[in-house]
Structures are given as structure tokens and as C-alpha cells.
């Protein structure tokens, strides 16, 4: 839908309660507080989300479970690092708030090649830290 002018939108459509959109990822908010070792209905969809954006290596046979396993925790930590969140590995409120935001469909991590913060910090730790400390 192309809205030619924000002021021309009919009043009935502007009322927040009148919209019946189904934001694709709103359901993820029910996982607030979920942590490693738990099993929750629908966690597989969150794993699919992380897979779509490159945080879980994708394979044709990907069949995600509803378990909060090491794979999800690792993905979550990389995501939190990329979005400047506290790296807790848990589905805290701030992380979920970021996850459900509308976004670009391009992956953050492409072909397993880490990008954004999650790669920069690791290269800093293995290379940069030593040299900068020396100087």
C-alpha cells in the first residue's frame, strides 16, 4: 500500500486500535525471560528467524526444535553483540524489543562470514588488543 500523503489518510485508518495488522514477529515477545535449557512452543520459529538473518548456519535439512539449546544461545549472543545489547544469551526485554522491530530482509551474517560487531570484537581480541597494549 502506497500512502501518497500522510495527512490524507482517512481518520478511521489512523486510529491505532483500528489496525488489524499481524506483525510477523510479535509472537516472540512471549519468550521473555526464556533461557538455556528450557523448551517452549514456538522457539523453533525464533530459530528460523535467526537462521534467516545468518545467526544459525542454514542447511536444507534445517529442522529446528523448540529447545533453547546451545545453538540458539550462541546465535542470541552474536545478535546481542551486533545490536549493542548486553550479551546475556537470554531473551531479555531489550533483546526481544529489538528482535520484533521491522527490518531489512538481508542477513546480518552472510555465508557464515561474521559481520557487524560480532566479527570486529573477535578480531580485536585476537590481534588488536595485543598491539594496542604494546604501544
Amino acid at each position, binding site marked *: *500500500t*502506497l*500512502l*501518497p*500523503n*500522510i*495527512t490524507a*489518510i482517512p481518520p478511521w*485508518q*489512523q*486510529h*491505532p486500535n483500528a*489496525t488489524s*495488522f*499481524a*506483525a*510477523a*514477529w510479535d509472537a516472540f515477545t512471549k519468550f521473555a525471560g526464556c533461557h538455556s535449557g528450557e523448551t517452549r512452543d514456538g522457539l523453533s520459529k525464533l530459530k528460523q528467524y535467526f537462521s534467516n*538473518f545468518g545467526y544459525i548456519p542454514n542447511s536444507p535439512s534445517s529442522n529446528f526444535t523448540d529447545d533453547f539449546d546451545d545453538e540458539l544461545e550462541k546465535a542470541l549472543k552474536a545478535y546481542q553483540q*551486533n*545490536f*549493542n545489547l548486553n550479551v546475556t544469551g537470554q531473551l531479555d526485554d531489550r533483546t526481544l524489543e*529489538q528482535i520484533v*522491530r*521491522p*527490518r*531489512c*530482509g*538481508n542477513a*546480518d551474517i*552472510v*555465508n557464515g*562470514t561474521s*559481520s*557487524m*560487531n560480532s*566479527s*570486529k570484537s573477535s578480531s580485536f581480541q585476537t590481534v588488536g588488543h595485543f598491539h594496542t597494549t604494546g604501544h
Partner: protein
Amino acid sequence: YTFFPGTPRWPVNRRDLTYAFLPGNELTDEVKAVFTSAFQKWSAVTPLTFTETDSYSTADITIGFYSGDHGDGEPFDGVLGTLAHAFSPTSGRFHLDADENWVVSGDVTRSSIPSAVDLETVAVHEIGHLLGLGHSSVEDAIMYPTITSGTRKVELEDDDIQGIQSLYGSNPNYNGSTTPTATTGDRESSDGEI
């Protein structure tokens, strides 16, 4: 800023790029002007130029609105969620989710529609991908992956400018400000001719 793996970019002999809109979308001039403005943000800081063409089949960059599964393996998901995606150089494919409530003009921040998305904000971001930039962790950068609906962000930040200029160099007219000094259609060519 980041790049795609392998750092793909438009080759030296393809820096004057053309773009075309999917004819079936039948976009108005007002909508097309939003994309023109978005391209201008990037041409202001690089030697790249962007010119609209009617020839969809030969354009370097193709822009289209699609719903759901549209054949590239990356289906759209309806209102909000994924808004758009674009391919790395030199694919040139730029797809937007037709199911979004795209705001073409006016102050999107005044909208009380929770799902209103500013078209130019997303266009500027996706053009960054078309030119070779990946996502950035800098929250103010255009290439940050998420946006909050009802917000507008169309000016390139230092992070975006540093990234794109490391791929293509700087526009000779670029003076450190992203405020446009000329329009896309009449600015100097790379060899200095008007």
C-alpha cells in the same frame, strides 16, 4: 560498516548506473521521485551516478514491489517484519514488500498508524546494499538493519560515507557534508565535465 563477502562492487566501467521500476507496479511520478532522492544521497558522496530508464530489461538496477513468495527464495511476510531486501553488486535487484503501508510523502512521525513505514528511509538503506554495503552496528547509520515504524532516517552518517567511499572513492564535489550540492541529473561527471 561492513561489506558482503568478497567485497563485491560495481566495476570501474559501470559507475554510471541506470535504474528502472517494475512496469506492473505502475508507480506514480511522486513515488519514483522518492527513489530518485534516495539515489541522490549516495551519488552526493561518491562518483556514482544514477539515471532512471524505461528499459526494465537492460537497467543495472531493477526496483519492484512484491508480495509474499516472489521467486527469489526470500518471501515477504506481510505487514512489518521484513520490509525489503536488495542484492549485492552487480545483481541490481531491489525488492520491497508490497504489503507494507509505505508513506511516500509527509511527516511519517505524525502518523498514528503503527505500521506506517517511510519509503525513502528504506530505499536509502537498500541502495546501500545494491552498492555493496552490508549491515552496520552503528545505530545512527543508514545501514543499521532495523527501523522503528513511524520514523524517518534518510541522511547518510559518517559510518555509511566511510564505507561507500572505501568502495568507490569520493565525489569530487563532496565537501564533508551530505547536503546535496547538485542534483543527480546535472552534476559533474567523473572527468570534470558539467
